[in-house]
């Protein structure tokens, strides 16, 4: 395999393109870390993609989504300027563009944020009488929304996300804004700029991410339902690590409007709750098209899946290498439960599984680097020096992968591999109704245990990649506990728009088991 050598000069150039000021130390660190990720990504070159078209969006051939040319109300000048740190006579004030910016190498000193709860799951207590918690990626009008990042600390949005509006319209009251890996970047819940979220089953362990706070407040029964998002496992991972149920919907089923974007072609807003029955009920509140999100207007929405075969697939690639033996054993017991419920179990192959992480860690950072470009501290929030290390890493990686001369090798290549993932699943769903798989290859691990090596953490997302890259839904539910009393979860994946079927399967399983009823010890709450 050809080694990708990233020079420091190249990294400097990328930092300039990404509008990041990096100190010498950071440059050195990112040169090493990016090289290691890029070396890993080289496995994509093993995949033949010459005649495979790239997939940049998963939309069921949805096309020509327009708005009529009608004027809608704008913000008042006061509202427009309200979140800016510097204004003058109705204008935003920006640094003079002709002045060279000095490279800031000084380390920012942050005020410590008040920790609200024992698990550091809650960023703001909005209303103690409330009944829904929102992941902090959801824009809440008048309520601080940080995305778990210092960049947005203190930002009070001027509008509501569509999902938050749906909950308000249904009579819900926002109780919490919830901690998360900053910008959704993380599988463990350790990447929040406001400190890691802790696992209520064992406070030394990670809570899983990125929707860490959402899973914890549901697990500890502080709310019945919390919003969350899943770009590649961010609902499923914390759901598994906290023993709660989560739905990562079909891409486009739930509006992304007002959900701070991580990777636009992958982001799926969804929910966490204590049982599949409840999840199904809450999901109906937000499962609808939104005129503000052009990608939520698929004509296939609500299509009839046809008669079910009564066959559930098990992906052989998930159960060979790299899976913890205890997780595998617990998962196979869950498979047996379905067998006893008269489902046929059939092995299926998702042959491109091993390329999932590589493809994902090109596509997602490329889109993330773009989506995070708006944070310049002019109209709201703080400047780009406030990005945490993981965000900077992904911005750098994504900027590199989409820079001139590299798109063919990275972004476009990954998009072609993405097409192969879609084909793998389409083929599988011709034989089976749904695919059952573990959520995580390993049980919750110690906080800090893997933080030195970003690639190791990236590899945790492996089982999340098929449904994320293909925009298909996945329901994550509890299926047992390890010897150390740590929860284990499984996911039921289905074709696009098959949420109803997934909920039915989940409910069937939960009628036969009561793993989902177990709660962490809340005695000392």
């Amino acid at each position: 395999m050809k080694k990708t050598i990233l020079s420091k000069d190249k990294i400097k150039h990328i930092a300039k393109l990404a509008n990041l000021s990096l100190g010498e130390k950071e440059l050195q660190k990112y040169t090493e870390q990016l090289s290691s990720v890029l070396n890993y990504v080289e496995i994509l070159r093993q995949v033949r993609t010459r005649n495979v078209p790239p997939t940049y969006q998963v939309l069921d051939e949805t096309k020509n989504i327009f708005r009529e040319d009608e004027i809608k109300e704008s913000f008042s000048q006061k509202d427009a300027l309200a979140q800016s740190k510097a204004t003058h006579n109705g204008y935003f004030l920006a640094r003079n563009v002709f002045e060279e910016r000095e490279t800031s190498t000084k380390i920012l000193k942050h005020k410590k944020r008040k920790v609200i709860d024992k698990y550091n799951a809650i960023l703001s207590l909005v209303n103690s009488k409330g009944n829904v918690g929102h992941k902090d990626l959801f824009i809440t009008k008048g309520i601080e929304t940080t995305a778990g990042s210092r960049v947005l600390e203190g930002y009070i949005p001027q509008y509501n996300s569509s999902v938050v509006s749906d909950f308000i319209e249904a009579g819900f009251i926002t109780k919490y804004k919830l901690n998360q890996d900053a910008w959704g970047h993380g599988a463990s819940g350790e990447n929040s700029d406001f400190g890691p979220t802790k696992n209520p089953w064992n406070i030394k362990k990670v809570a899983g991410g990125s929707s860490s706070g959402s899973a914890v407040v549901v697990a500890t029964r502080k709310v019945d339902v919390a919003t969350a998002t899943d770009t590649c496992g961010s609902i499923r991972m914390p759901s598994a690590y906290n023993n709660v149920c989560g739905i990562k919907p079909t891409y486009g089923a739930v509006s992304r409007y007002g959900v701070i974007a991580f990777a636009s072609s992958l982001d799926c807003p969804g929910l966490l709750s204590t049982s599949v029955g409840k999840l199904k009920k809450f999901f109906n509140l937000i499962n609808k098209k939104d005129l503000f999100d052009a990608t939520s207007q698929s004509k296939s929405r609500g299509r009839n899946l046809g008669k079910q075969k009564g066959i559930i697939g098990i992906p052989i690639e998930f159960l060979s290498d790299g899976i913890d033996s205890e997780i595998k054993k617990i998962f196979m017991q869950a498979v047996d439960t379905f067998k006893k419920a008269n489902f046929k179990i059939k092995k299926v192959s998702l042959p491109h599984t091993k390329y999932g992480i590589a493809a994902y860690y090109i596509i997602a950072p490329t889109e993330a680097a773009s989506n995070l470009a708006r944070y310049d501290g002019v109209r709201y929030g703080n400047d780009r020096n406030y990005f945490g290390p993981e965000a900077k890493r992904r911005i750098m990686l994504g900027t590199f992968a989409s820079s001139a001369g590299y798109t063919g090798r990275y972004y476009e290549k990954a998009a072609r591999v993405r097409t192969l993932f879609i084909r793998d699943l389409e083929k599988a769903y011709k034989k089976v109704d749904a695919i059952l798989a573990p959520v995580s290859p390993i049980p919750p691990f110690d906080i800090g245990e893997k933080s030195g090596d970003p690639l190791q953490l990236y590899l945790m997302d492996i089982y999340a990649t098929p449904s994320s890259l293909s925009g298909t839904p996945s329901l994550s539910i509890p299926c047992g506990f390890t010897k150390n009393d740590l929860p284990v979860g499984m996911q039921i994946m289905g074709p696009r728009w098959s949420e109803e079927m997934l909920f039915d399967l989940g409910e069937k399983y939960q009628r036969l088991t009561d793993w989902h009823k177990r709660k962490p010890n809340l005695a000392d709450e």
Partner: protein
Amino acid sequence: MNNRLEPTIGLEIHAELRTNSKMFCGCTADHFGKIPNTQTCPVCLGLPGALPVPNKKAVEWTIMLGLALNCKVNRVSKFDRKHYFYPDLPKGYQISQYDEPLAINGWLEIQNPNSKIPEKIRITRVHLEEDTGKLQHTTLDGKRVTLVDFNRSGVALVEIVTEPDIHSGSQTKEFAQKLQNIIRYLGISDCDMEKGSMRLEANTSWGLDLGYKVEIKNLNSFRFVEKAVDYDLVRQKAMLDKGETPRQETRGWSEKEGKTVTQRYKETAADYRYFPEPDIPPMIFDKAFIERIGKSIPELPETMLNRFVKQYAIRKDYAEILTTEKNLANFTEKVFKLAYSNKIPLDKVAGYIVNSKIDYKKVEPKEIITLIQKKKAGKVENEEAIVKWIDAVLKLNPQAVADYKKGKLNAISVLIGNVMKISKGSANPMKVRQLIEKKLSD
């Protein structure tokens, strides 16, 4: 070797569409002279979480323009993100079109100075994008700062790119005027150079293989376009003759100094990292849709001009003037019809409308007929007498004189009108025009 050198000019022209709302949100698109930051929303301010939804009318109008410019409309088209950092670009990227623009491969004809056959200027592409906010650089408390107004942010903008087929300042001006006229006939943009709703950038050099190009921009009138391009081509040639290569740079026009000057601008990285806009589904048009838009295209200036010459048998130079504006052309046609039934020769009517101070917006077509009928045959042709009237009028109308010198050529009609007034209608308006033009060009 220098004999082979030839002025080579390609244009990039931006026009703001006059849709009601912006390109990707419902904020009003009419931004000129409005109180800063009063026409924004989450989308055009680039707030976290906001998403774009494209304006249908803007898409249809861009296709219409493509067809009017003889382009092929792409049946499959999409939006892309173009990345660069600048405080007037709220998202850190502009939603634009990269490799699948709405329309490609068109052309527009302009005069060829060396031949009677008009010259075809090839149009590379016509695409749709969003405008940026507006910056003002100033000093506050001794600190240099930039003020930002986002009212313009997200206004629908079409970009028309030509091949480097243009060879002089006057051709550049002619092309731009012709394009402006077409766009105005379509009714899709005001195309006002002064207000910035039409913006022109000329990439100039003495050949594509010389390893440089000079971009001339920030030109707010057609007169400046011509002057700036011609001036800079001479400047470049002088350098080339000395064996130097002109610097690749952006230059603007200084009317005060009568020359092009290096534009102070912030260099942004030239790597735009285009990728398909994931927030917007692709556009796929069927033949019927494109044909329907094609059928809705009104008669274009060129067609109308030719029709005027053929159908009404008027002089071509009159027809050219009378079709420079769609409303004027429609007005003229009404007058023609009345004149025909009143047995007044149409060429005379055309001449009258061209030469007299007629504000067609304020006059009814039939009043023109009455005026022509009243008019006596005899006209003062004596230059001395006319010049006296002109001198008086120029003194009384410094604003119109200044406007004309700034490039607002139609300011001359005010002056002609006033001369006609003083002369009580006795001066030959053609002569008056000639003499004023001569005087003001001195």
